[in-house]
């Protein structure tokens, strides 16, 4: 497992954000945190094994994803990017300049039909192409759920390896963004984690996003790649300019600790890091793991960690946390010193005005860590 030195710069989300049109957003609305802003600056969390001098650029997540897509379309003439509004760059600008560079026959808009977008992508992939389908918001992925679960996941299996749709990658922005409401904030990754045959990958930062996306596209299995939309502009990092991949099904230890293991993915890790910082003042040492690939997930690394610490706080985005909790309880039962706990959103549909109360905030995580440690 390659562990890299990286730096994390992102704007912390505190209570009562001040909403407004950010002047730097280039027209796309972003939550403007106004005076209550605080930056988490460069954090060198893990020592790198190979002290290579990589040329890097300081860019945000959508630019990193854009670079990855440019790289793929450059290197493989049979790769295609399609979805709603990808032509002009996409509503999150992830596909900027692709159409101009590679042409309308490789980067094209589809009509508004998610089921057909993914189904068509499966067809393309089964013919040996790399189909990169974009679903505009993960909340809209449900019409395509049938195609992903019933077709993409089973394609290789049911044809006895005569055909496969490994070239399919479905990208979707997911997660809360502060003002999204019911249908622009959902985190549906758990639905896909119960389907054998596909992989689910979620990056936490721009450099991770580029590497994981390149790995996902090149992986010979269909991958659903969720991008935390909250981090598209807010997460800024030094990202290597060259073509690199990060391994799938390999979790990463972001912070070493000895009292409790926290497992998470995507945007939530930033909040978890804040919680870890806060409890470290109380002398609780947290080990923070980024799962990166949700299925198939890196069980060994998490088990090793729990065997070391004896406590587990499983994913804060709920759903898939159940699988992790069950698995760890099974394998590390005698070592556990406290029940596995989960901190997630509440059991209601994603609310509109009540989002600050719904979200698994830093305080909720801190409380859960303390409860687990003091069990």
């Amino acid at each position, binding site marked *: 497992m390659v562990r890299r030195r990286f730096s994390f710069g992102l704007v912390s989300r505190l209570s009562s954000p001040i909403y*407004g049109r950010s002047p730097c957003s280039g027209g796309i609305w972003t939550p403007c945190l106004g005076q209550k802003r605080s930056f988490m600056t460069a954090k060198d969390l893990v020592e790198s094994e190979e002290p290579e001098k990589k040329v890097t650029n300081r860019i945000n997540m959508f630019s990193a994803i854009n670079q990855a897509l440019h790289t793929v379309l450059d290197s493989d003439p049979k790769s295609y990017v399609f979805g709603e509004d990808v032509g002009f760059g996409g509503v999150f600008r992830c596909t900027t300049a692709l159409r101009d560079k590679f042409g309308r026959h490789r980067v094209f808009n589809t*009509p*508004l039909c998610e089921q057909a977008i993914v189904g068509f992508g499966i067809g393309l992939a089964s013919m040996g192409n790399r189909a990169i389908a974009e679903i505009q918001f993960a909340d809209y992925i449900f019409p395509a759920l049938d195609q992903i679960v019933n077709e993409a996941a089973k394609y290789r299996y049911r044809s006895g390896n005569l055909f496969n749709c490994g070239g399919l990658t479905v990208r979707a922005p997911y997660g809360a963004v502060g003002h999204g409401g019911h249908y622009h904030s959902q985190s549906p990754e758990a639905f896909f984690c119960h389907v054998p045959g596909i992989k689910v990958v979620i990056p936490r930062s721009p450099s991770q996003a580029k590497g994981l996306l390149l790995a996902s596209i090149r992986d010979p299995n269909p991958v659903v790649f969720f991008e935390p939309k909250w981090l598209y502009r807010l997460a800024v990092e030094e990202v290597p300019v060259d073509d690199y991949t990060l391994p799938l099904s390999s979790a990463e230890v972001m912070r070493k600790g000895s009292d409790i293991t926290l497992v998470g993915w995507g945007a939530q890790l930033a909040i978890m890091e804040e919680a870890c910082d806060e409890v470290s003042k109380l002398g609780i040492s947290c080990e923070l793991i980024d799962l990166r690939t949700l299925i198939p997930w890196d069980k060994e690394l998490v088990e090793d960690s729990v065997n070391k610490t004896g406590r587990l706080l499983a994913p804060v985005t709920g759903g898939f946390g159940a699988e992790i909790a069950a698995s760890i309880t099974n394998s590390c039962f005698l070592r556990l010193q406290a029940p596995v706990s989960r901190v997630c959103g509440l059991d209601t549909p994603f609310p509109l005005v009540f989002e600050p109360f719904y979200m698994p905030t830093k305080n909720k995580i801190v409380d859960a860590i303390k409860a687990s440690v003091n069990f």
Partner: protein
Amino acid sequence: MVLGRSFEDMCAQMYYRGKMFGFVHLYNGQEAVSTGFIKLLKQTDFVTSTYRDHVHALSKGVPARQVMAELFGKSTGCCRGQGGSMHMFSAEHGLLGGFAFIGEGIPVAVGAAFTSKYKREVLKEEGDMPVSIAFFGDGTANNGQFFECLNMAQLWKLPVIFVVENNLWAIGMSHYRSTSDPEIWKKGPAFGMASAHVDGMDVLKVREVAKEAVERARRGDGPTLIECETYRFRGHSLADPDELRAPAEKAHYAARDPIVALKKYLLDNEIATEAELKSIEKKIDEVVEDAVEFADASPLPGRSQLLENVFADPKGFGIGPDGRYRCEDPGFTAGTAQV
């Protein structure tokens, strides 16, 4: 129409002042469609809409105060602040909802139409057959749900009217570049359904076509598909910089502004005087101002509302074993809400 326009302009102002938030989609330019159709309906008729639903709500009779309060997320809004801009509902006025997801409202309208027909024909209830209208856009006309519903509605001859507000753009996708046959009204006859194409910038023409469709539905002769050629003057939403549409196209449609056109018609045919029109506008301004003040002064919903209405029985979820709402539990504010 004037109410719709003033209201939407005020929405934009309030949004940029930070009073409302989220994704807001304004209806400027398309008012003729809403007015033309919905003003023919009774309170017992049904309307389903899209995320661009403020003016549909206003046309259907939902008070401007309630709509504005809903946009501000206040508890006096039509959905008690739960829905927001894209989810206006009103049981009293038969507004079955704005829907954030495209095409989701069409099957709902078809279901409501089935109920109307059933109540009248099987249960022999008195009164006019309530009609349902489903509003949606050109992008939705490429979606599977649309076709499935056209088939069902015509098969069972349901009193539903499908109104396509073709404003030529689905965020950044031009209708002509995403549809094999851009003439949407032609999709009706493929299902054996009566259909029409109308200039959606002219409220009187829309009303004519709408009348025929509503009468057909009330008689029990089945559904109609109507394509209204219209245009939105603003971007897709208040976050959309609207860079993709050609200025020439925008200018062309701005010249066909439905409100300006109707004004001209009224003045030319001496149906109303300048003074009367001005007094209407003044009254509308007062209504909108009053709506904003009301919404501003209204309280935010209590935190207990977060857990309400997930299921039918609040005790099954929202109320804890001690008989109080779970979110009144002190642990809630501390952060460890175990729900």
